[in-house]
């Protein structure tokens, strides 16, 4: 048994023989848990996941002999865990509303029974290896949990459980490995969080991750297995964007990691998700969702761990053949946790106090996203990573944002001026980008409309043109613009208000199906084209701008539901009939003049 030498905030120096780097230890009378981060002669440095208040030099230290690991098995969905995968509901029962220290809680419920159905081919004498499916349990109504052979296990089955109810500690199979030892397999296994889980091979899918948000899906698409970042200053609506993705994404499993953010935001999810319906499965959203919460007032070292804990759990569902989305809010707080520990270690700061390894850690984390063929080659799954970034002062050139920007492929930049005008989601169409658009294009062409790519390009060019024209107006006034230029401004304003703005609180508009997204864009661009012709024929822009259609077109998003596209079509027909009449009038007038 070792002893504590020094206590300095979350860092504790211990004297302990035979301890390994990365090993977990329990400290002092309270039994606080920490992780060895460096060794020096006979002492080791430990970062502690809990507050070290009242810890004294001389107190005992016990090495736990394993690295920071998570338990992977049925019972994770619908749960909320802390940064080191302790279930917060159990902690609430044990210690009341404030989190006590040194609690020993198993991550997964030991008492709950699950109905286990063995896989067809499960038989004595059969060889099974890492990643293969031993059987299934129905974890929630929608999600079938596939019990996997732990990655590093391989051997012949000597005994296995029949169909029936089991607790997760029960042995469901025993295998004889090549060293002739018997390994007992349960419904769960441990995996160290800092080691990516193995897979057979990477694949490249072209399946977009649909979020029902027009600015994201149509303009800056993300693919399943992709990596995206949402940077934005405070108040720009990062959390709302992240929550909307968690709500509506067409993934099988959604994991929301609240890393150093507000407690109330997690409560919001916990309270609203059970009541919301997943548009893809028709079931309660909470059945496919789980959370990791290290709020801003919880210990900073556990914040650093929470990201890895989250991504390891995401990989585990990927290995079962599911498409998983992990939303991390916010990676900046994770980077700050790194900085805080580095600062206390006296490591040389490079940019804004961040350690030199910031970029490589970020890259390694995002690299855990991807589409894979699972280890046992029986299926494929994906992990999509979406990280919020909170740049100080909204300055995108700061280290975390700039490093992240180099790693990710979809960048949803949030803009303060848009948010100030309550233009939500405040995703800037000039600063955002997506490298996946070419691959997304084929999906949209096949499933929605082959004009998608063209329309998208056209709408974006109108928006950028309008930005340019507005600069001119601000210098010399609107009189300097030609009629057709003023019509571009008008259309851009329709696109912004009618298409890009989307209310998360509006029941109809909160989720917009791909077909509706395209239809809306189509109507608006057609409106623009028709208006352009009318202007050529001599119709004044003011008259067009004051047409009642102008207001109606901005409201279609919240008038027609995703199932009422034919009504929307009828509405559009009426609208364009009216405009055609106008066109005929003007054309007639022009002929008379001629």
């Amino acid at each position, binding site marked *: 048994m070792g002893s504590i030498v020094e206590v300095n905030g979350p860092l504790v120096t211990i004297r302990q023989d035979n301890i390994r780097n990365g090993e977990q230890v329990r400290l002092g009378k309270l039994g606080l848990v920490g992780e060895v981060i460096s060794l020096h002669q006979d002492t080791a440095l430990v970062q502690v996941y809990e507050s070290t208040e*009242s810890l004294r030099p001389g107190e005992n230290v016990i090495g736990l002999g394993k690295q920071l690991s998570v338990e992977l098995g049925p019972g994770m969905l619908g749960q909320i865990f802390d940064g080191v995968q302790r279930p917060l509901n159990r902690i609430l029962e044990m210690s009341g*509303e*404030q989190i006590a220290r040194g609690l020993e809680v198993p991550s997964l419920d030991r008492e709950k029974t699950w109905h286990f159905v063995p896989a067809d081919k499960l038989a004595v004498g059969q060889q099974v290896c890492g990643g293969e499916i031993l059987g299934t349990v129905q974890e929630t109504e929608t999600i079938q949990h596939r019990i996997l052979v732990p990655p590093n296990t391989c051997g012949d089955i000597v005994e296995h459980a029949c169909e029936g109810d089991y607790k997760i500690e029960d042995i469901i199979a025993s295998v004889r490995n090549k060293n002739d030892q018997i390994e007992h397999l349960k419904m769960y296994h441990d995996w160290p969080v800092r080691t990516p889980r193995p897979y057979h091979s990477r694949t490249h899918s072209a399946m977009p991750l649909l979020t029902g948000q027009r600015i994201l899906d149509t303009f800056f698409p993300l693919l399943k297995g992709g990596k995206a970042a949402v940077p934005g200053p405070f108040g720009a609506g990062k959390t709302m964007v992240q929550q909307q993705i968690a709500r509506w994404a067409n993934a099988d499993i959604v994991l929301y990691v609240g890393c150093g953010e507000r407690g109330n935001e997690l*409560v919001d999810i916990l*309270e609203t998700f059970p009541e919301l319906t997943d548009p893809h499965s028709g079931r309660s959203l909470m059945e496919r969702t789980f959370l990791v919460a290290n709020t*801003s007032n919880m210990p900073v070292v556990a914040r650093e761990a929470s990201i890895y804990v989250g991504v390891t759990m995401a990989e585990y569902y990927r290995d079962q053949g599911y498409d998983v989305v992990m939303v991390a809010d916010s990676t900046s707080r994770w980077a700050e946790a790194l900085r805080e520990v580095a600062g206390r270690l006296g490591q040389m700061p490079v940019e804004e106090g961040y350690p030199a390894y910031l970029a490589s850690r970020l890259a390694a984390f995002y690299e855990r996203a991807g589409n894979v063929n699972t280890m046992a080659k029986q299926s494929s799954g994906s992990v999509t990573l979406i990280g919020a970034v909170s740049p100080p*002062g909204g300055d995108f050139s700061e280290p975390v944002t700039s490093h992240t920007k180099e790693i990710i492929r979809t960048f949803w930049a949030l803009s303060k001026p848009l948010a100030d005008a309550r233009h939500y989601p405040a995703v800037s169409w000039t600063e955002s980008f997506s490298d996946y658009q070419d691959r997304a294009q084929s999906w949209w062409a096949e499933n929605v409309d082959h004009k998608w790519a063209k329309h998208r390009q056209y709408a974006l060019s109108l928006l950028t043109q309008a930005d340019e024209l507005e600069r001119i107006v601000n210098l010399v006034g609107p009189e300097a613009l030609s009629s057709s230029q003023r019509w571009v401004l008008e259309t851009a304003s329709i696109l912004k*208000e009618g298409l890009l703005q989307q209310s998360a609180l509006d029941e109809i508009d909160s989720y917009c199906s791909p077909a509706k997204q395209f239809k809306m864009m189509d109507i608006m661009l057609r409106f623009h084209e028709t208006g352009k012709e009318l202007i050529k024929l001599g119709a004044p822009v003011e008259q067009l701008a*004051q047409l009642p259609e102008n207001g109606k077109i901005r409201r279609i998003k919240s008038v027609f539901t995703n199932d009422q596209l034919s009504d929307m079509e009828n509405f559009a027909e009426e609208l364009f009939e009216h405009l055609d009449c106008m066109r005929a009038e003007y054309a007639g007038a022009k002929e008379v003049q001629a």
Partner: protein
Amino acid sequence: MRQVEYKQVTSARGSLLFLKGGNNAALGERVAIRDKDGQIRNGQVIRTSEDMVLVQVFESTANLDLENTWIRYLDQPFELPLSPDMLGRNFNGIGKPRDNRPPIVSSLVRNVNGAPINPSARAYPKEFIQTGVSSIDGLNSLVRGQKLPVFSASGLPHNRLAAQIVRQAKLPDDSSNFVIVFAAMGVSHSDAHFFETEFESSGVLRNVVMFTNLANDPPMERLILPRTALTAAEYLAYDLDHHVLVVITDMTNYAEALREIATEKGDVPSRKGYPGYLYSDLAEIYERAGRVKDRHGSITMIPILSMPSDDITHPIPDLTGYITEGQIVLSRELHSKSVYPPVNVPPSLSRLMKDGVGKEFTREDHPHVASQLYASYTRALEARNLASIIGAEELSGRDRRFLEFADAFENRFIMQGEDTERNIIETLDLAWELLSLLPPESLSRVSEAEIQKYHSWDETR
């Protein structure tokens, strides 16, 4: 408590004492420091090892020498005695009376650092608080259990606004008053006096607990003061079932004290010399606001901070904005136009408003009206901008209407007297009166039905 006193000081600098010989002091342990005159000072262990202890002294180390300074370890963390008698009293940062009355004696003591609230124990804040101020109620509603800071700057009337909120805040259908915990750090004597007289004249003094640290009191005490105050607030809210409104001023002084001490300790600075842990440290304070399931009481927090050189991207307002649930930003421009309260509408925000307003709490049109006012005012500011370049005469008829709307919005909606209290219905009706200056087709955030019901557009006007 250990009876032994140790004489082991090896160096004294600023507010820090270095002691040799570890004596196995616990981190965060409280110590009593006796100087050569027999005066006792308070300190706290901030770093401890087998052969060295670092102590932070709340009253500074001025006048201490290395020879005649004795240390006694008290074997306990910083704790605050709690009792209902705290109401109506005034304390310093470590809970000692400032009002020449006896100290609080109670068997109930709590560690001032608290412990993080389990997120799954929180209840989501939803109940609308009516502050009687249109620019807050109408546009950035405060709800019970929210933390909504006021971002101000030197010379702006944030104290008057805070006092007005304290005076008027109530639930629309509930007459029970809030209990106030007032925490002042590094404030001037006149500011402290302003609040004292305010509380006295409005008759709420009996429901106020004050914690005061003046500008010439030791900065070290500012670090513990908000924690002490919030420990008292938690006691009032969760033990005594009160709804507590915590007003903290001025968080900038707090953060500066933190920087001062961090520099003394030799912590690696990040932005503008503030330590890297400023975010976590501020969060420990702000996150103590909230509601807890199955408890009647609640803690609503209004921290006031002054933005150094009016810069909202300065680390203090910036990090605060990332933690709190919105912000009320004050504007120097409106203040110079004599608009009170000078609430700068575009950057102000209340994140919890979405669930606290509407049919169930205020009126069904409230969320749409707020969004419409924002959109129209932003549009109007653009028109005003344009007018300043090309002249108001050159504007189109539509833009001129917006210009008119901007003036009316500032002078009638935002502006209201310090003693004017508008209930939420009055605020919403006023909003529709102003929106009626604009043609209906320019209002895309409100529904057609709401336009029918509330909008009184007069084409000929």
